[in-house]
């Protein structure tokens, strides 16, 4: 019976999420961002193909110029340029979730969705009609997790389609790496979503939760940059920085082989942040009065 009630609550949340315009605006913007990323790759690859290469030996300054004093490129420059954009094209596919800035869109949508439900009084109404607060919280978490999944799959499919327009060599091993990246990015996105959901449950309005979330993002970034600079100067150990909140996406979207510390940061830390966010968010929601 209780499971059935959770399904009812979830279906109501999904209904409202489906009706939220920001969900579709987010998908469109994501497509635009992915397209622009690949467009840069295509333009770069085309430029590399059309580069005029000179056979002349460079002068003392290492540069060969034409009659208008414009520099000419060597075969080495052309190869480096081609490799750069081929690699960027490949990394764009591997990091499809990250490229699509899912973190950012999920932050906005979760804050709007939860904030609206609080400010419109939907949460108040549902709880007053006997929906348990635990169900209400987890229903929103599951709805947001579904949103992350849909966005991730959408980003992957869009990346795949755009990658196929101008493919670089892609092996079975690469497919394995792609799946690894996708899974890790998804997990990291779920942990990020949990943090923003917690913030939304603490703030209880779209505006303030968005403000706090963006503030959290910016302040954390600044603090970590300062710490990182200080550690660089003093020669201290910087490995622990990747364990901090919202710092796992770069590792998750990298196609490079991951070491034990990185694997720990990208697999264990998301679970830690998910558990902590759910714990704090739920405990507060259970304790506080609903306005």
């Amino acid at each position, binding site marked *: 019976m209780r499971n059935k009630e959770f399904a009812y609550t979830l279906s109501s949340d999904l209904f409202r999420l489906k009706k939220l315009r920001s969900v579709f605006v987010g998908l469109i913007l994501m497509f635009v961002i992915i397209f622009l990323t690949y467009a840069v790759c295509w333009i770069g690859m085309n430029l590399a193909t059309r580069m005029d290469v000179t056979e002349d030996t460079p002068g003392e300054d290492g540069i060969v110029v034409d009659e208008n004093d414009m520099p000419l490129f060597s075969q080495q420059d052309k190869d480096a340029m081609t490799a750069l954009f081929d690699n960027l094209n490949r990394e764009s596919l591997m990091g499809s979730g990250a490229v699509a800035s899912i973190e950012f869109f999920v932050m906005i949508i979760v804050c709007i969705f939860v904030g609206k439900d609080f400010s419109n009084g939907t949460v108040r*109404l549902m709880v007053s009609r006997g929906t348990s607060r635990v169900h209400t919280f987890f229903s929103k978490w599951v709805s947001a997790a579904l949103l992350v999944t849909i966005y991730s799959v959408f980003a992957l499919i869009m990346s795949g389609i755009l990658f196929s327009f101008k493919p670089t060599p892609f092996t079975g091993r690469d497919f394995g790496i792609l799946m690894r990246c996708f899974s890790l990015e998804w997990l990291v996105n779920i942990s990020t979503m949990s943090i923003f959901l917690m913030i939304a449950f603490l703030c209880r309005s779209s505006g303030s939760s968005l403000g706090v979330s963006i503030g959290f993002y910016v302040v954390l970034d600044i603090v970590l940059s300062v710490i990182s600079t200080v550690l660089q100067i003093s020669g201290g150990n910087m490995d622990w920085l990747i364990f901090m909140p919202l710092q796992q996406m770069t590792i998750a979207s990298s196609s490079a082989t991951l070491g034990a510390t990185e694997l720990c940061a990208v697999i264990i830390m998301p679970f830690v942040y998910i558990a902590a966010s759910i714990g704090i968010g739920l405990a507060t929601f259970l304790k506080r009065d609903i306005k």
Partner: protein
Amino acid sequence: MNVLETKDLTKSYRGKVVLDNVSVTVREGEIYGLVGRNGAGKTTLIRALLGLARPDSGEIAINGARTIQELEEERKKIGSIIDSPALALHLNALDNLKSIAFSMGQRDVSKLKALLERVGLEPADPMKVKNFSLGMKQRLAIAIALIGDPRILILDEPVNGLDPAGIYEVRELLKRLNQEDNITILISSHLLSELSKVANSYGVLANGKLVKELRSEDVEALSRPYIKVVVGDLKAALSVVTENYTQQDFDILPYNTLALYDLSKDISFVATMFANAKVPVLNICNCDADLESTFISLMGGSHGANDAHDEPVFEELDVLRPLQSNDLNADGENAKKEDNDEK
């Protein structure tokens, strides 16, 4: 049978007690009016009943259920409106109903459309709720409260923002729901005259305390018709009244006004009585039973409640408050009036 019950319910916010050992009882089939000023604790009491506010101490029982899980189960049978209507502004009316109905496992859209028609809204209207008038929002909130055929309705200011026709419709709807479907209704409202047209029991709250629980017969007994006389010389008028009336059943109202409750002497007798004594009468009329002043006096008059939450309507009505004996000074003058003048 008691369907809603609180026992010694206490709730405070940051050290300020907003509910102080409140014990109310709502019986099955009643329309229970919750009366009190702003800040008296009406909404907090309703929130506590609906599980939105956790009481510091005391007990809540709904249909006899007392544990958290049992209460959650019983709350499924309660429809409610609390504060402003809880509506998703970016959705239309039908989608708003769907959104709540789905959470209760109800997927019969035809029933939801019928509900909208019942409160006078057009089910096929694609207009988003953010473009609704306050009255339309209130109607929609009532429709949402009626989802799932509730056995109890808890309504906090349900006629706020409605035009007179809308108020009449809601009143008739509530009466119908109560009489035909035997739905128990707890309703709070500032519109006391409106409340008295539907409620048959009352709970009067003042400063977080339940002052009194009354049935409508008790309220009627407390509020009596009277002859109101505005005189030019209050002192002379008082001596005339004490000479002519064996029962000293009168009140002194502000602005040299007397309220005479002994109706064995009619208005013409009163006019003649003052004329014979050469006491100028500036105005004289028969007044009906005044429920509002009865409630206000039960709530402790204008000085009984939290001044921080006073509402203008009560301050205006303060002039109607009958004077108490301690309002008179040693010379029998209207001390209250003097106080007002000094202010």
